[in-house]
């Protein structure tokens, strides 16, 4: 970790060296370690220390971006020059309204010294515990236990200076029995508060229950989706169109439907970078403070996220959802939430004559973005539900399903939420019971 003062000095070096009309500097540092295990042994164990300096130079309404990972003055000045030279060569873009102005940045608590100091030995001992538990039950453990400490800072020549440190601890476990698998995941800011034993127990128990799956026919089933599966579905919904860029281009399912019902009344989905139930991030990659944005308010289409470019097109303010300059994507929600309900496991199962319990999805992809149709496989614990009880494990199935149709058919919502993090962002979601979820084929295991 370099700290706010050093990063501010680096940013000032770049801005002062830049001949551009406006200059933005995004700085990130990352010290990340990951202990990976397979067949109940550690087979990969890695550490990386990286720095990223990303300079956006503005000349009139032309933009160029340059990056470096070297912090010496010569490299920083050279990066500023490269960005400037690129901007000079770019054609005019009248839609580009300039870099954002400074706004107050809220404080969040997203850094844990425990996580930053977590050692390879600690991770290895945690993994050994998971492996020993698995081997003691006659099954094998696979997974990854990662701890990272990250700093993000953004400065620009219009007065923005924003800095936040963050830590993330993430444990993912797959346990394999002879012919069944189980899964568990835990993510949080503080590694010492991750329930490693609990996660191991969850994955082992699921794997043991998943042995000897029976064949099942595809078709429409009432399903209970664990939060792992719901998180994937909501992530993809965001990717398909909860951003202003795709709305403005007409590619989003939200375009032309604001104020209309797109999902059930029991569905409210929002993005909130400040919510401590997620991994809080107070500002985006332009240094704009994150606003809470409600996408679906009791099923009604309400809003999407903006960065300064898409906001400028509509005369609006950025909601603080920009990605790094030059990424080529528009704004993106990275802290997604789905409102919980009041059902416990019994409540989620009650009344289901014949249905399926789904732990998680695998290899999901978009089939049709405006119809919000996804396809993917079930994985790591798929069970038959009969008369309100989980009975037998079944072979995995392929689903092909519209997300909005699924969210219009939610019969019950779990009261507990789980925080899930992937490489890009995170979701905090409950379990859902959904009627008529469409499975189009099965696989052989």
């Amino acid at each position, binding site marked *: 970790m370099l700290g706010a003062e050093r990063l501010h000095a680096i940013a000032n070096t770049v801005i002062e060296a830049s001949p551009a009309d406006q200059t933005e500097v995004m700085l990130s540092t990352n010290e990340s370690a*990951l*202990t*990976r*295990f*397979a*067949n*109940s*042994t*550690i087979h*990969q*164990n*890695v*550490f*990386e*220390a*990286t*720095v990223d300096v990303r300079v956006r130079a503005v000349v009139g309404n032309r933009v*160029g*971006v*340059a*990056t470096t*990972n*070297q912090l010496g003055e010569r490299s920083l000045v050279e990066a500023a020059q490269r960005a400037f030279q*690129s901007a000079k*060569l*770019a*054609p005019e*873009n009248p839609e580009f309204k300039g870099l954002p102005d400074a706004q107050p940045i809220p404080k969040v608590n997203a850094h844990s010294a425990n996580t930053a100091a977590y050692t*390879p030995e600690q*991770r290895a001992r945690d*993994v050994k515990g998971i492996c020993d538990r698995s081997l003691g039950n006659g099954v*094998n453990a696979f997974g*990854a236990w*990662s701890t990272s400490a990250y700093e993000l800072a953004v400065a620009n020549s219009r007065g923005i200076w924003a800095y936040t440190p963050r830590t993330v601890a993430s444990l*993912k476990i*797959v346990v*394999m029995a002879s012919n069944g698998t189980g899964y568990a995941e835990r993510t949080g800011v503080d590694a010492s508060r991750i329930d490693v034993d609990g996660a191991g127990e969850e994955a082992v128990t699921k794997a043991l229950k998943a042995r000897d799956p029976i064949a099942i026919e595809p078709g429409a089933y009432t399903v209970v989706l664990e939060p792992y599966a719901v998180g994937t579905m909501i992530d993809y919904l965001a990717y398909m169109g909860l951003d202003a860029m795709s709305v403005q*281009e007409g*590619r989003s399912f939200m375009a032309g439907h604001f104020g209309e019902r797109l999902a059930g009344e029991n569905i409210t989905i929002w993005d909130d970078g400040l919510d401590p139930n997620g991994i809080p991030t107070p500002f985006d990659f332009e240094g704009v403070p994150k606003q809470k944005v409600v996408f679906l308010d009791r099923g009604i289409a309400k809003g999407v996220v903006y960065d300064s470019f898409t906001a400028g097109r509509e005369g609006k303010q950025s909601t603080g959802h920009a990605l790094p300059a*030059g990424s*080529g994507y528009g704004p993106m929600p990275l802290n997604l939430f789905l409102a919980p309900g009041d059902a416990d496991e019994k409540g989620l199962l009650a009344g289901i004559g014949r249905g399926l319990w789904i732990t998680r999805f*695998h*290899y999901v*992809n*978009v*089939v*049709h*973005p*405006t*119809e919000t149709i996804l*396809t993917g*496989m079930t*994985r790591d614990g798929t069970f038959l539900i009969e008369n309100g009880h989980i009975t037998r494990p079944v072979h*995995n199935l*392929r689903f*092909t399903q519209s997300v909005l149709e699924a969210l219009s058919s939610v019969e019950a919502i779990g009261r507990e939420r789980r925080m899930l993090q992937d490489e890009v962002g995170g979701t905090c979601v409950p379990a859902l019971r959904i009627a008529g979820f469409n499975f*189009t*084929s099965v*696989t052989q*295991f």
Partner: protein
Amino acid sequence: MRELVERALNVAQVRGATYADIRLEERRIESLSVKSGAVETLVTEEEQGFGVRVIADGAWGFASGSVVAGEEVDRIAAMAVSIARASAIAKREDVRLGQPIVSRGSYRTPFQIDPFSISLEDKIDLLMAADAAMRKAAPIAVAEGSLEWSRVRKTFASTEGSFVEQELVETGGGIVAIAVGDGDVEQRSWPNSFGRHQGTGGWEIVTAMDLVGNAPRMAEEAVALLTAPRCPSEATTVIIDPTQMALQVHESCGHAVELDRVLGMEAAYAGTSFLTPDKRGMRYGSEHVNIVADSTVPLGLGTYGWDDEGVPASHTPLVTRGEFVGYLSSRETAARFDFPSNGTARAESWRHLPIIRMTNINLMPGDWKLEDLIAATDRGIYLETNRSWSIDDRRLNFQFGTEIAWEIVNGKRGRMLKHPTYAGITPEFWGSCDAVCREWAMWGTTNCGKGQPSQTMHVGHGTAAARFRNVRVGIA
């Protein structure tokens, strides 16, 4: 450079490593994208760094850093050893690498025109011209174009005595036309899906694409798709174009033959494989199906001199006349079967650990001319340009979608169809292949994901169009 390399290896050995290697890299990547008449991104990226991989106490450790200087090299090398010792806490057996590898030499991607020698103005002009040509030809909602060119200089050295230097150059680009209407979004991409075809080589790769020449057709087809009938749901004959065949080979063969996946080392993320060692010799496909891994073939994104363990590039049969015969391997995975690695351990960059990745996984050409194959097909569907892909975690049940398809009726291309999807079970699907065409080309995939932490790899697929019988289409 050599001094730092030797310093890192010495520190690792002094600290107790029984094996150590180091990769140093300097990377320069430049990219440009244009959207609907405006430059959207114009980025130059430069970075350098190194990664040290060691075996100590019979277990692996890896650490990487971006400060390429004495003390930092010492720190990172020492850290790799302490990480390895920590790994040994949960070790069940020692890592074996097989016979020592001593590689020496240098390799440079051959090219005709250095992509860095083409001015930025000319690159911008090219994409703007293609953009204008798309928007003039048809009322599309969005026109996109992109170019990327890169140079990576890497040095690999090991305590076994390897020292190799490579300079890898890539060039790529593409265009996408997106049409919107009546709640539908359709797109056409050239020359490959998601706006990108890339290869190891120079600017001649972009010139061969003829972006401006193909732009109007992409726009016209995107708009036409809006009102085209949907692909029917049925079981039928399909002929798949070379770019979609690249995806087919990638997902259902390339990943399935990664030996680390077979051994469970990817189970926590991307899954395992149905091609377990007892399946060597099984019928994977029909006699028309021949698939190889080849890191020596020109233009491939998986073409190099040595992999990231210093193992030389090679050619390995994977499927021969339909019989499954080979894997992609690394030193550790190959040693478990007492055969040598075929050099497919690759890392996304200096800060990543090398793991088994595809190189160029190629469907070998057959005898048919595509136009003759279509003419010889009574009824079916011709599928072109990937749009979506999904497969189960053992690489069996798949469902893929393309941007566009055409009916084949009595040997002729007929109506355009939208939302074409097809599905199958891998060996049944390949078993239904009854013809492969001879118009063969190398395609580049720049977004292959694997590993924890996740690594993105560039891989190549040489393919030709092929025909398959009794395939389920029109899933959604």
